[in-house]
């Protein structure tokens, strides 16, 4: 079994979000980058298949050399090898094109992406890649079991869970639930040492173009201060919600 996990390099969830150069560029000053959480749930499930079914796990990212620390971390967690496609991530479409060209060179049985990145929140790459490769696609995936060539996957839907079946190969959009938070692997010293010896290939990008561009960022307007209501005067809260906020 050959598994590809697509990794996005994103700011840590506690980062203060600021922009520079007339709000055109995200301010990376003082920001720590991490494996996109949704991707990490997917990677952890891939490592489970590696340990149970001797699957080979390859991780890939599209980005410049600044993305290599998180690829090394994936190797320390247990991935067998890493690939960095040496191109700026222009938009979801161009990233999916880059990944497609890798998937055409090697054949993967399972391709796992996070359901969306926590920075752009596009949720575009996994579905686009699946459609380009004409593979079945399950996003918001909270469970995936493989028996021979058959896959049973669960998808979280608005207000419930859907159980789906299909054949390999498949593209998955991973999220929390595919593995639990407590299953996430913290690299140990041995893993970190081994990661240094594992292959991290840098490949030239395929020709691609973008279909969208981000021109400018904006932060939400500063919040007015909270109106405190006396706990002995609940009627006031109800009146505020009814007459002022008009939400009940």
């Amino acid at each position, binding site marked *: 079994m050959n598994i590809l996990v697509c990794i996005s390099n994103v700011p840590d969830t506690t980062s203060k979000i600021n922009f520079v150069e007339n709000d055109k560029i995200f301010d990376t000053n003082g920001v720590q980058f991490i494996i996109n959480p949704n991707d990490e749930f997917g990677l952890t499930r891939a490592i489970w298949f590696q340990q149970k079914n001797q699957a080979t796990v390859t991780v890939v990212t599209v980005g410049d050399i600044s993305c290599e620390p998180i690829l090394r971390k994936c190797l320390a967690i247990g991935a067998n090898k890493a690939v960095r496609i040496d191109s700026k991530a222009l938009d979801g479409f161009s990233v999916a094109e880059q990944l497609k060209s890798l998937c055409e060179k090697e054949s993967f049985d399972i391709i796992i992406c996070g359901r969306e990145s926590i920075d752009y929140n596009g949720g575009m790459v996994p579905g686009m890649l699946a459609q380009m490769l004409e593979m079945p696609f399950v996003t918001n995936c909270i469970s995936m079991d493989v028996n021979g060539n058959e896959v049973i996957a669960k998808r979280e839907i608005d207000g419930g869970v859907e159980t789906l079946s299909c054949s390999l190969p498949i593209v998955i959009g991973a999220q929390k639930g595919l593995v639990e938070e407590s299953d996430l692997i913290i690299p140990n010293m041995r893993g970190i040492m081994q990661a240094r010896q594992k292959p991290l290939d840098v490949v030239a990008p395929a020709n691609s173009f973008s279909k969208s561009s981000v*021109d400018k960022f904006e932060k939400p307007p500063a919040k007015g201060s909270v109106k405190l209501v006396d706990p002995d005067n609940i009627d006031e809260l109800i009146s505020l919600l009814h007459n002022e906020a008009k939400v009940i």
Partner: protein
Amino acid sequence: MAIIVYAESQNGKFKKSAFEAVSYGRALANESNKNLVVISINADDPNELANYGPDKVLSVKDSSMNDYTAQVYADTISELSKKEGVSILVLSSSADSKYMSPLLAVQLGAGLASNVVSTPISISPLVVKRSCFTNKAFNYTTLKGSINIICVSNNSYGIHEKDSRPEVVDVKISKNNPKIKVESLDKATGSVSIADADIVISGGRGLKGPENWHLIEDLASTLGAATACSKPVSDMGWRPHSEHVGQTGKPVASNLYIAIGVSGAIQHLAGINASKVKVVINNDPEAPFFKAADYGIVADAFDVVPKLIEKLKAFKSHQ
């Protein structure tokens, strides 16, 4: 050329977000001087859409599409969109629409923007404002396709009624061959889902244990609201993961969000920031949630929530 909207339905009934998407489509059609064509799939009464301004409704009724499969729905919508000469396709931001939007983008060779929070800043070039960094910021995105897809954020544009007399056309679809089969669907009946809810009631660690969740549930049923929880609560197994809202959980964009015993970690606030009005009840006046909320009560949830439920019941019965 036409503006196309897919109006999502469930068990034959249009979702509220479908009317919002059609209203949004009407605004786009007016601004760009194009016709508005709305696609409905297995909705009982496609004429209901006439209240929101379409020029034409394409109604698909096909029992092979009773189960939602993203691939089959995307194949159908892209085929119909191409026939109508689509310039912009509008979808909602429901889980199902977000699932199929990237498939549609590849099939139509289209540009795609999800989580769009307002009508376009400009039509030519097409520039939209969308939320990013999990609601901690917005970006202005230029869509460069000759066809483009916009997924409208729930509750961002609102529903605008506009009477129209659309031509309603029954259309047949070509035979589909799904790669994925739906084996079963496990849907909570009777309760409101977080995605569709106008009001969401959320509980945190301050409730001390799952046995106290009747407070959240009673308040939710009084208001017809969905229930949600913070990350620690779902991690400790007090509540199912499907209720976890925040940066790594579900996003919330309700009209009213009431947080009880939730401290308001930055990741939680990011996930619920798109809600219009936020209320916090917490006994710790230093809880960060008070900085993000519109209204707050500094008090013990166990004292104040039962009183709130009682008062709300009285308020509701007088309406």
